């Protein structure tokens, strides 16, 4: 059934290593996605959208080896009452997972679901809609995802769902695809934690119906050598709320794309991220928010702390379509460079076709404020603790985007721990 493959090229070399799973209802979407991958080709160094991030290691046939990392820290959100769904190197682990039953929610697995009508309308749909920019790694994900979680939220979910991604194999190459559908007025908080795999390709499609609320808090695991390309595709109905926050510590290469289509009036979309990198660390946030409705608000708040040659990238776009009046769009991306070797590359973009909108964006790169540092030290605070305080203060604007105080405090504690381990 394979179409005649063109002569050896990176896309075909990668596809050769993969086998398309069969699960009936998703087959058509997978095949369509494969056709899109072939049409677009996997990203290469010369692609404009990959100008600041070299995609090679995300595209090459096999995952580069990534050493495992352990430290004293216990599991994140360990004390929180949540429904755990555990994947080890991308493979579902029933033993470590809770029962997939939760009041207000129906949960299925992509690999097992025989016939899921609601999901078949969504699987690959929002991804395939990423019409403005080619996102071939996401299409590859749709075509070849081996598993994932399908969540249909019909009411207020009784407690948060936590995807826990463990990494135990140094060469694992995982592809997971989740679908989340929130019915009108439904509410869900989704947590994602852990390093996942040596190389992780993850896509998540989120359909937020009118008046529904989706909170997403993610902490990408600490393994220094892991690589990840992740995509979130969200569609927002009227008066819906979508809030996503990502904390990234370590990782050799991380590309997080977030594509949001606001299609209903009076909706709110916030995407935020904080990352801290030391040394061989490349972190790319690529965000695309489309306003196609009245009186909607979108915020993008990204902060990066970089040292010892770490690289941060931000590509963020706000597209306001014709007629999307009273749009309130805000975008800020900032980096704190703790030395001269680190760098931050930003490409903020506004494209506006409506005349009655308020959109602002800003991007800055800076060092620690020497005046503030001296002030703190003059009160007896040692230089390294003062630097940590100022670093956390720099990240605060992004971290404060997390509404839930318990989740926020847990992440701040992680950040503190990281800063303590990465001084000097």
């Amino acid at each position, binding site marked *: 059934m394979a179409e005649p493959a063109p002569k050896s090229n990176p896309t075909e070399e990668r596809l050769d290593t993969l086998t398309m799973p069969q699960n009936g209802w998703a087959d058509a979407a997978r095949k369509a996605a494969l056709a899109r991958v072939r049409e677009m080709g996997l990203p290469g160094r010369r692609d404009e959208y990959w100008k600041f991030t070299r995609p090679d290691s995300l595209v090459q046939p096999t995952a580069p080896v990534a050493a495992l990392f352990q430290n004293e820290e216990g599991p994140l959100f360990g004390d929180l009452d949540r429904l755990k769904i555990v994947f080890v190197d991308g493979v579902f682990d029933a033993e470590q997972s809770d029962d997939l039953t939760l009041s207000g929610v129906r949960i299925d697995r992509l690999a097992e679901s025989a016939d899921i009508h609601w999901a078949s309308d969504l699987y690959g749909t929002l991804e395939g809609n990423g019409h403005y920019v080619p996102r071939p790694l996401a299409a590859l994900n749709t075509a070849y995802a081996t598993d994932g979680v399908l969540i249909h939220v019909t009411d207020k979910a009784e407690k948060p769902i936590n995807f826990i991604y463990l990494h135990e194999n140094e060469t694992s190459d995982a592809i997971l695809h989740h679908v989340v559908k929130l019915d009108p007025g439904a509410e869900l908080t989704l947590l994602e934690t852990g390093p996942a795999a040596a190389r992780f390709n993850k896509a998540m499609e989120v359909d937020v119906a009118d008046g529904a609320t989706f909170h997403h808090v993610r902490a990408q695991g600490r393994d220094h050598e892991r690589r990840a390309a992740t995509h979130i595709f969200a569609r927002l109905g009227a008066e819906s709320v979508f809030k996503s926050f990502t904390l990234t510590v370590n990782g050799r290469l991380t590309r997080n794309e977030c594509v949001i289509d606001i299609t209903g009036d009076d909706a709110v979309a916030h995407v935020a991220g904080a990352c801290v990198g030391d040394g061989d660390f490349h972190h790319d946030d690529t965000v695309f928010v489309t306003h196609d409705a009245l009186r909607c608000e979108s915020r993008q708040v990204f902060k990066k702390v970089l040292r010892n040659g770490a690289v941060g990238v931000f590509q963020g776009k706000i597209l306001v379509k014709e007629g999307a009046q009273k749009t309130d769009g805000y975008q800020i991306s900032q980096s704190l460079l703790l030395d001269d070797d680190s760098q931050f590359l930003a490409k903020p973009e506004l494209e506006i076709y409506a005349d009655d909108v308020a959109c602002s964006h800003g991007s800055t790169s800076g060092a620690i*404020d*020497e*005046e*503030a540092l*001296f*002030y*703190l*030290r*003059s*009160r*007896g*605070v*040692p*230089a390294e*603790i*003062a630097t940590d*305080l*100022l670093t*956390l*203060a*720099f990240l*605060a*604007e992004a971290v404060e985007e997390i509404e839930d105080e318990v989740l926020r405090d847990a992440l701040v504690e992680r950040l503190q721990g990281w800063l303590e381990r990465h001084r000097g």
Partner: protein
Amino acid sequence: MLNIKNLHVQLEEEDKQILKGVDLTVEAGKVHAIMGPNGSGKSTLSYVLSGRDGYEVTEGEAKLDGEDLLEMEPEERAAAGLFLAFQYPVEIPGVGNMTFLRTAVNAQRKARGEDEISAADFLKVIRERAKALKIDADMLKRPVNVGFSGGEKKRNEILQMAMLEPKMCILDETDSGLDVDAMKLVAEGVNALRNEGRGFLVITHYQRLLDHIKPDVVHIMADGKIVKTGGPELALEVENNGYADILAEVA
């Protein structure tokens, strides 16, 4: 307590001499005031003593209870008991006033080998001392000095001093920008800290503060040197006649 001998300081960046041989001794239990024309080097002296970057000491020494201040990091000087109330307090967005002060108090205690203060005890003490300075709970929670009025910043400096209980307090124009009532509060804050073991060096342009904080000794600084030293009457003389006579006399 504080012994400064023949202190010469120039800027690191440019070849400009700012302090040209300062001699000054502040004894424990005493309040010394420094007055002097703008640009004479008063703030520079306070910065050099507290360890700010950008200055090079080319000659002389500065000791606190026999310890060489100039060899220490700023935080070590603070732990040794030196405190500077800044002429221009720094705003630090994102760092809560309370967190900052507790971190500072505990860091100093740790450096001196003392136990940390408990969160509850700290809260009790800071509330009490803030109240005396009419600093409300909201200001304690806000980021350090961010959005504070000029007078609020100065009162916040005095609160920090009250919490850190330093041995040697340097106040750089803490009175500037204060209204009459705030000036009294600040003076009361300082007076409450006066005791036999503590020395003060109060930099000011005006007699008014010295009406409330009665100095034992008044120095006049001009062009990087202490040019005249006297009693409280010297401040009155400056208030009435300006610096011209004094400078002419020493020239």
